[in-house]
């Protein structure tokens, strides 16, 4: 009796499954594109130039609010920041034995201001592993600010975290030497005349102050 009932139940389930299967398949097929659309709507978009420009604008405003007017003008006009080294006998400041050039998303370059000799490259990044928009890369000016904060707050620690290489591994040494010359000229020029509120951009013609939100 029990066996018969069990068999009947199994047959009933199989029959119901066979009857419902086409309807279920049709329903799933109908829902699939809707589900894809829903996922696309929820997922962060890929690279969006407008969003990146707005992010860079905010990053520049933050950088400007943290560094001195002079350093800001240096970054605005030249595209990099110079930070004096603080571990030598002379302390941090214009008399320091060495200095760093901070470029966005490139290694920090240490050099001797007196001779222009390049010392080392410190490869360091600040990756955000949560990748909020699919990328772990901070806006350019945020990367510069992160390096500036880490260097001025705890130079030894940052240098310890970085991978140190000889000059030329990632940054073209000729370009760095040209940048040091540009920096010297810029300092001479700005010593003679006040820093203008807005200047032309780095050597590639990019004008950082003229970024507009898209």
């Amino acid at each position: 009796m029990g066996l018969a009932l069990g068999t009947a139940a199994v047959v009933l389930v199989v029959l119901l499954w066979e009857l419902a299967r086409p309807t279920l398949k049709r329903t799933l097929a109908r829902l699939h594109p809707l589900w894809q659309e829903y996922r696309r709507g929820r997922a962060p978009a890929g690279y969006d130039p407008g969003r990146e420009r707005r992010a860079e604008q905010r990053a520049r405003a933050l950088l400007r609010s943290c560094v001195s007017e002079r350093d800001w003008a240096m970054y605005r006009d030249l595209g990099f920041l110079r930070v004096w080294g603080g571990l030598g006998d002379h302390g941090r400041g214009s008399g320091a034995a060495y200095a760093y050039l901070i470029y966005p998303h490139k290694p920090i370059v240490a050099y001797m201001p007196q001779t222009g000799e390049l010392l080392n490259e410190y490869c360091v990044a600040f990756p955000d592993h949560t990748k909020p928009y699919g990328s772990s890369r901070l806006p350019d000016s945020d990367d510069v600010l992160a390096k500036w904060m880490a260097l001025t707050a705890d130079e030894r620690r940052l240098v310890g975290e970085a991978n140190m290489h000889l000059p030329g591994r990632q940054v073209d040494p000729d370009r760095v030497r040209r940048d040091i010359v540009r920096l010297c000229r810029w300092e001479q020029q700005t010593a003679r005349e006040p820093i203008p509120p807005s200047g032309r951009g780095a050597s590639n013609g990019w004008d950082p102050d003229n970024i507009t939100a898209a």
Partner: protein
Amino acid sequence: MKPGHGEILLAEGDVEVPEQEQELIEAFRRELDAGMWAAVPTATPGGRREAELVKRFDEVPRDAERVIFFPRAAGGAQPAIG
């Protein structure tokens, strides 16, 4: 600091108001627990701008205007482009 966004305001308040201070402490802990570094921009009496890394909320100067959180440093910058 966030990729694709830049600066994001996480919390704001007055450290002299206990409830607001508690909110600031929680936000601070949340960021550090997420692996971020915290820095306070400062200015020396001579006008030099610097930053101070802080690891605990009580290390933040009481008169600090803001604390900036950013991803911790990792050796090995991405290959140079251009």
